[in-house]
């Protein structure tokens, strides 16, 4: 029976909005309208409302379980403005004839008022499924750690989730205010990243590299794939060995940068520089081969190599025409996170490489420095790694952004894939914290359905 129900999980004919980031679901969400209920009896109206809302809220939970969780008293909160509280003791609301003094018509001043709340009724009826949001699996989905509530449930069952540092394998665990849950980073990346689809992308990029590199983007992709074949680096830096490994990757990258510059600037480079660059590439290759064989290359020597290459790169002086697309790309990606850039570098390299690049980067012009920094950072943080179960370099999956929101009762730290359940979701004047795609009218009907049984 369950199998049959799942067959039409994202059906178009009898659409049900689900807790997933699926594109069919997005299409169904776009088409979702409050059904025409005038011709139906009250029972039918409530039935329709109940079945629609339950199709979204915890459809993997049995109805009797939900009925036990349902609460007929939704929680709500009001903001109390301290300035108002300090000035008034509330008696002004009972002044006059018992309901506060009347404001004179046309006057701007409307009497003392408690600030900080919207001027709208509290949508209690949108809070029916608030108890459901307490469930661990649904909270994981809400924190954007899984692409569907069912996937979140699977993460819990498979033991990838901890609550307050202890493994929790019950998806139905009801979070208490202050509980911190954490999901395995690799699982989150796999769930929210693009899937690996054969080696179609790689093929396209290698052909791009074989042909004359016209666009910087293509070259970038090509070099990523080539790098994967040449270097077996890109491991977590756990000790000095791993740091060296990282060094190798960086050197490799710098080499590719140099080659790219050579390809693009072929006609304009003077022969001398070209020669120097070619020689350097050769040297670099030798150094890398040696270090790969010996595994006892000193870190200082590697730093030296990096510094030298960056110096040469700076001599080549990228033309403005070449800088333009790269600068734009960098603007897009980098936006306002320049502050955390250094922290990220340090995190990825364990301090050693970041220090060396920082010093060597002093040789470059501003734009070059920014570009190189961005490229290196990106390469370190988000490397091409065929061993991962998702497409690398990691990118968010398609159709994720329309579903990306984090409700206020959660505080999420995406870097460690952890979130704290701060409090139960509440309704405030004009706002409700339960993410539900249905109109207030439909929710009200569903609420009445459960009141009958509650």
């Amino acid at each position, binding site marked *: 029976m369950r199998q049959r129900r799942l067959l039409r999980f994202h059906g178009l004919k009898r659409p049900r909005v689900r807790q997933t980031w699926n*594109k069919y679901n*997005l*299409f169904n*969400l776009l088409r*979702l309208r*409050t059904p025409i209920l005038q011709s139906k009896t009250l029972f039918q109206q409530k039935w329709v409302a109940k079945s629609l809302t339950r199709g979204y809220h915890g459809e993997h939970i049995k109805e009797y379980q939900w009925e036990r969780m349902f609460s007929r008293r939704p929680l*709500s909160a*009001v*903001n*109390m*403005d301290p*300035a108002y*509280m*300090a*000035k008034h003791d*509330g*008696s002004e609301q009972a002044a006059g004839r018992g309901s506060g003094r009347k404001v004179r018509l046309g006057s701007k001043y409307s009497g003392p008022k408690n600030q900080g*709340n919207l001027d709208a009724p509290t949508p209690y009826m*949108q809070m029916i499924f608030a108890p459901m949001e307490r469930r661990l699996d649904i909270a994981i989905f809400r924190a*954007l750690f899984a692409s569907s509530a069912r996937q979140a449930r699977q993460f819990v069952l498979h033991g990838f989730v901890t*609550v307050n540092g202890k493994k929790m394998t019950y998806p139905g*665990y*009801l979070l208490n*205010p202050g509980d*911190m849950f954490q999901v395995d*980073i690799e699982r*989150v990346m796999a769930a*929210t990243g693009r899937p690996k689809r054969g080696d179609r992308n790689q093929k396209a990029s290698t052909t791009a590299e074989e042909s004359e590199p016209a666009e910087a983007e293509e070259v970038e992709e090509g070099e990523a794939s080539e790098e994967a074949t040449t270097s077996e680096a890109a491991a977590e830096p756990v000790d000095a060995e791993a740091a060296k490994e990282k060094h190798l990757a960086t050197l490799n990258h710098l080499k590719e940068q140099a080659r790219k510059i050579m390809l693009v600037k072929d006609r304009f480079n003077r022969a001398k520089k070209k020669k120097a660059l070619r020689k350097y590439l050769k040297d670099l290759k030798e150094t890398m081969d040696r270090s790969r064989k010996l595994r006892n290359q000193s870190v200082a020597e590697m730093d030296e190599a990096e510094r030298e290459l960056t110096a040469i790169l700076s001599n080549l002086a990228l033309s403005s025409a070449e800088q333009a697309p790269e600068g734009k790309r960098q603007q897009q*990606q980098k*936006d306002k996170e320049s*502050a*955390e850039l250094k922290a990220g570098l340090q*995190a990825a390299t*364990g301090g050693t490489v970041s220090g060396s690049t920082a010093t060597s980067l002093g040789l470059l012009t501003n734009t070059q420095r920014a570009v190189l920094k961005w490229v290196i950072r990106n390469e370190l943080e*988000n490397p091409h790694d065929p061993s991962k179960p998702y497409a690398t370099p990691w*990118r*968010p999956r*398609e*159709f994720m*952004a*329309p*579903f*990306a929101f*984090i*409700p*206020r009762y959660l*505080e999420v*730290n*995406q*870097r*460690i894939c952890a979130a*704290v359940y*701060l409090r139960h979701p509440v309704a405030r004047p*004009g706002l*409700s914290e*339960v*993410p*539900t795609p*249905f109109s*207030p009218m439909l929710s009200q009907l569903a609420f009445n359905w459960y009141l009958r049984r509650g």
Partner: protein
Amino acid sequence: MPPRIRGSSCQPQLLLNYLEPAPSSLTPSLTIAPRHRPATSSAPLPCGRSFSTTPAPQVTRLRRRFNEWVEGSGEQFKEPRYGETNYISRTVNFSDFRPVSPDQPFPNNPNFRSERVLSEKAREMIWQAIMVKGMPLKAVSAQFHVDMRRVAAVVRMKEIEKKWQRENKPLALPYARAVMGMLPTADLSEGEKPFEPINDIHVHSYTMQQLFVPTSESREFTRADAAKAFGERILPPDAKMRIPELVQMERNIAAGMPPREATATFIREAAESEKAFADRQHSRAKATEERTLRVQTDRFEFRIEKINSEDVGPTGRARKAVGWRYGVPHMDRRRGEVKIPTRVE
């Protein structure tokens, strides 16, 4: 499974050719290769459906519309627009009378908005204020307009993040960057509108009823009186404030204290109250520790506490009562009894 004819990717077509003598004499001879022969002789024809002569299912109207949408107007939702949100409300317009706000992830539900989250910069700032400058939680909460519980959570998770960085554990940096690019963020900089209400009080269900309380006209009917009218044990809002020191600060300012001095007083009072709270917690933990006797064995740590066996309530079935009691069944052995933990320490 019926035996298959090897060697070509489009057998039914060839089979038909074989059965009906084709005008060209070449086709039949190529069709059925013997089983042991390698499949190289026949070139694969462009047909993906082996052994099926039924026509391909027609694309339904709905599916066609979906395909059109995915390739047409749905294309814009495929990729995030870094730096701003990309909700479907952007494209939905029910009518002029029902405007849809662009920060509404669900066009039908105007009561749910995608609210801002703290940016990395803001989190770092909060962590700095608490852990480096040593400011009290309440003061940080009031300064940045961030709920106290959120401040505590930010610091708690930031500490783990820093620990991971020290241990060179990989962080989910590309994921974090992508998600922060999709969400509306708050930097908590000067001049930004308040992040969230910090002086929330819970609405007690007793206070949701409408009451008619006759009082004399001359009486000052305050919040405290109203609370009493709703129920003996209902607290007035003043007693429920999360940061009562803020109200005191406003009172001081209203009484004519210069704002700078009032703020300093507020920070001092907040630090004092937090210290008192910490002391209380500490003494409670100490008292519990003194009550319990810990015995460490290879496998378990036994924690032994004194209990009173008479302490079983009037019916003898009090929930805190210890041990097996006559006539009280062990519910945990019942079929279908939920044994999910209710809390994790």
